[in-house]
């Protein structure tokens, strides 16, 4: 084992709080990456992905692996004025178990599009996924991005997301993060344009010994820019989650609004939740707020459901479904919705 620290928070706090970063085995980034061919794409472009340097990202080793050894490079060029679906579905199996993907989404001015990116795995495969999704939303574009991680609990899921949102552009994310013995996400949005907007709705669901480390960072630079981060999760078994959310109001982002809300439902007494919802502010004329909460299911609600003939387990599932419902219902694609609901049933 050669442990490395990744997913650093933009501002450090005491080391004793154990949330500044997460340690993982660094040897995963040394080994040879084979081919990954089990991918189905809709609406991708023939153009090459561009070179990049990231402001954040998971860390040097994972990002260098993507730069040098990506085995899937996919680009979506959104040019439509009306909404259109773009898809990248990845299926891990015994022949395709390591994926290093570099996905670039470029939305032209005043365009619309929905991009769905989904990762599934064969139940017996210990998959390795290290991915990067870069989005450039040009002026006036309206983009929806749905990321669905349904990998099994033997897998490792690493994901860096980097958004640049220009004037009057809007990116709305739905992130379903259910899979992986370890699922680590670094999300960064640079709201550079005036009136730019970013909404993120994330669901995580942990069971067994799963570990989640979510590091969401939004930097507001444009006047009247807006970010809303809403993270809802449930943890069963001995699952553990770190949520690190940072809203950073940079000087000049007058009238910007930022809010983040994280709520964790603890389903067992072995599950653990750590939250670090940060607000950093160098501009006076802004509104920023965050809230974070954690706790078990409400006994009254459980009692009510059980008095209608449901078992405790079923009542718990219903509560989790209800908690996740708003985000799931916002996904227009019915097949994906049904798949997510099926996964909740299976994983609980």
């Amino acid at each position, binding site marked *: 084992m050669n442990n490395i620290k990744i997913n650093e928070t933009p501002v450090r*706090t005491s080391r004793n709080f154990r949330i500044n970063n997460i340690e993982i085995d660094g040897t995963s980034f040394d080994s040879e990456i084979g081919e990954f061919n089990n991918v189905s794409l809709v609406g991708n472009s023939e153009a090459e992905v561009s070179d990049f340097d990231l402001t954040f990202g998971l860390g040097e080793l994972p990002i260098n692996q993507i730069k040098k050894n990506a085995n899937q490079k996919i680009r979506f060029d959104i040019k439509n004025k009306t909404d259109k679906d773009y898809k990248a579905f990845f299926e891990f199996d015994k022949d395709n178990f390591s994926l290093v993907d570099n996905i670039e989404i470029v939305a032209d001015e005043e365009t619309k599009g929905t991009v769905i990116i989904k990762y599934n795995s064969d139940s017996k495969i210990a998959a390795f996924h290290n991915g990067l999704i870069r989005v450039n939303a040009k002026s006036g574009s309206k983009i929806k991005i749905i990321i669905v991680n349904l990998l099994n609990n033997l897998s490792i899921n690493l994901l860096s997301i980097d958004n640049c949102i220009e004037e009057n552009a809007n990116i709305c994310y739905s992130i379903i993060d259910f899979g992986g013995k370890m699922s680590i996400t670094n999300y960064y949005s640079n709201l550079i344009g005036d009136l730019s907007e970013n909404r993120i709705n994330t669901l995580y669901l942990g069971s067994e010994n799963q570990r989640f480390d979510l590091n969401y960072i939004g930097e507001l630079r444009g006047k009247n820019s807006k970010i809303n981060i809403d993270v809802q999760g449930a943890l069963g078994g001995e699952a553990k989650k770190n949520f690190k959310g940072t809203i950073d109001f940079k000087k000049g982002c007058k009238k910007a609004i930022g809010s983040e809300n994280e709520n964790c439902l603890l389903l067992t007494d072995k599950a653990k939740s*750590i939250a670090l*919802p*940060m607000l950093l502010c160098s*501009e*006076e004329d802004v509104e920023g707020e*965050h*809230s974070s909460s954690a706790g078990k299911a409400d006994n009254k609600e459980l009692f009510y459901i059980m008095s209608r003939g449901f078992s405790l387990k079923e009542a718990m599932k219903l509560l989790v479904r209800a908690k996740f419902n708003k985000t799931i219902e916002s996904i227009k694609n019915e097949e994906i919705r049904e798949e997510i609901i099926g996964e909740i049933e299976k994983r609980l």
Partner: protein
Amino acid sequence: MSKSNIEEINRNIYDFKNKDEYDYKIKKGLTREIIEEISKQKGDPDWMREFRLKALETYNKLELPTWGPDISELNMDEIATYVRPKTNISSSWDDVPDDIKDTFDRLGIPEAEKTSLAGVGAQYDSEVVYHSMKEELIKQGVVYTDMETAVREYPDLVKDHFMKCVPVADHKFAALHGAVWSGGSFVYVPKEVKVDIPLQSYFRLNSPESGQFEHTLIIVDEGASLHFIEGCSAPKYNKVNLHAGCVELFVKDNAYLRYSTIENWSKNMLNLNTKKAIVGKNAQMDWVSGSFGSKISMLYPMSILNGEGAKTEYTGISFAGAGQNLDNGFKVVHNKANTSSVVNAKSISKNGGKCTYRSLVRIGENAKNSKSSVSCESLMLDDFSISDTIPVNDVRNDDVEISHEAKIGKISDKTIFYLMSRGISEEDAKAMIVRGFAYPISKELPVEYAVEMNNLINMELEGSIG
């Protein structure tokens, strides 16, 4: 007419300085020889001398924090860690030398003692110069004395508690404190004794390029109660001064302790203080904290709820002006069932000042049916100040209710407009709003301190407009 910037504000009450006269000042730096010399000068018993030397070893092994404000300007080779004033401890103000007595007179301490306190301790540089307590409390068995006397007269009690709540290895400045501590107060409140009127210790650092490392140890025994107030100030010098005090509070079963602080160190002070409380079964620990001074402050009082049903509340405000970086907050660890914590933190930044609220709420595996509620509000008074909120909520069992809320923003234009439409000037309107913002804190303070806090807010705000 309002003044144009904070530097023009009259801080005479706090910034006056006496001539740097002392009976003994240790040479600058931090070596084994210096620690041995401090120990010799203070007449430590052997166990304390050994303790200091071990703490120095720990200090040399530990790293500076890798987070928070930049404290690289602190050079221990430039700091004298022990300055003995030209007087012995006294229980009558008449016996205190005139220049030192004058200092405390100007700070209003003897007057407050007469009107509203049950006991007073006053420290000047490294030693306590005055200590007294009302006769009736002495009769009830309450002990309120300086730490050096406590080490001599209550060795077992001190040995059992000294740096047990804040271990030397807690962080680099706790280790530094263990090596060079001097002065401070010791309080013991016997079982079931209720001390109705507050005790107060005031710490004044006069000597330039020096440090103050007072140790406050309070034991509130079972069923007893106490309100303790701590005040601190220093004149301003060009080079940094260091304050690395340590406060250890033991609140035994069913006891109650309120610890109030108005901190108004000068703006060349690095305030790297450590405060912790261990709270017993059904006991309650309340912290009230107003932080106005210091160039850099890293201060995170902590309650460790070790008894079932233990409670804690933190009510604090920080006010950072030009050149100040106040990194304050609160830590609470819930270790037992049915424990609860309530945090109400506020901060105000202006004239380029930086306020950071940094916190930890940890609910352990055994803390079933525990509750924690945190509310944090930050007010920005201009567009070149900074305000950050960095809270950690760590939940390790499912039977908990924990909520955290934070808000950040400026004074509402609508509210100012409303007040101005009623004939109030913009400056007065802002001051009124800020006082209202700080009211939840000031109402928790004894009235004299609430007035002092409001004066500080007025004084700070005077420079913020125009």
